[in-house]
């Protein structure tokens, strides 16, 4: 059973980690979670991001969810926001595409242009 005591260990480890790299958020991922996004599989997309990020221990990546963005025909839609760079919007996402975006874009810094539906604001 998971107990609150387990969190103490996590806290100690995380504090060490934060000391090393300063606790900055390098990339923010925002998954569109409006009604149409949910109906098209946005929950699985978000879940895959969370799994990949936990598995790779990417503690400088933040995953959030937002309402609809007005791109209903391209749902599930995901924004990648990196400081000092134009926003990249990926569309028609699924768990396999998410894995590719994590490896290519988030880890290696190469935009997966095949999945991009919009850039900038």
């Amino acid at each position, binding site marked *: *059973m*998971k107990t*609150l005591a*387990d*969190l*103490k260990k*996590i*806290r100690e*480890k*995380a*504090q060490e980690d*934060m000391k090393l790299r300063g606790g900055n958020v390098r990339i923010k991922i925002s*998954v569109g*979670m*409006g*009604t149409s996004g*949910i*109906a098209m599989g946005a*929950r*699985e997309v*978000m*879940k895959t991001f*969370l799994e990949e*990020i*936990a598995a790779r*221990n*990417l*503690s400088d990546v*933040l*995953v*959030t*969810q937002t*309402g*609809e963005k*007005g791109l209903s025909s391209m749902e599930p839609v995901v924004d990648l926001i990196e400081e000092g760079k134009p926003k990249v919007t990926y569309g028609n996402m699924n768990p396999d595409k998410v894995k590719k975006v994590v490896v290519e874009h988030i880890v290696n810094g190469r935009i997966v242009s095949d999945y991009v539906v919009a850039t900038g604001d």
Partner: protein
Amino acid sequence: MQDISLHLLDIIENSVRAEARNIKVRVINNVQKNRLRIIVEDDGVGMDSHTLEKAQDPFYTSKLQREKKVGLGIPLFKQNAEMVGGTFKMASEPGFGTVLTVDFTLDHIDRMPLGNLKDTLLNVIIGHSDVDYCVHLIYRDKAKEQCFYLDTKAIREELGDIPLTYPDVIEYIDQSLFEGIQNTNMEDV
């Protein structure tokens, strides 16, 4: 939407959009009463009686900023409950929040399944990590009652300045929810 957990995700998104800071989610599987009950309670901006009525109309949406003319989230959830002998109730008070109570007949052959409750809850807890959640899962039958409780405020207290979005914390919450769902028999409802 294929299952109840996806509707739940949609409803919680509504609460967040209504600027809720605290969201209480209860799922009660009451075998004795043959009832599956979902309750979502938020402290968001709330609705007046006119808006409350409108919210159940598919051709109404609170999303003003776009050309969008339909809002299907609530009407579909309502329909999916009422179609199988269930009920859908919404109560709200401007400035105080909204409570939504949805009942499904547990053994109705056409009732949609509960679905992946864990992913819905994990998504909203991590995806809106500035909102606090109280999750309460209850299973009840003649012989026993099993409960699971998760309060993000308590987790935050233990974590201090470490955010809920830290990878190990995500795994912790995922695992806690997994165990809670198993202990309350909510996997294959």
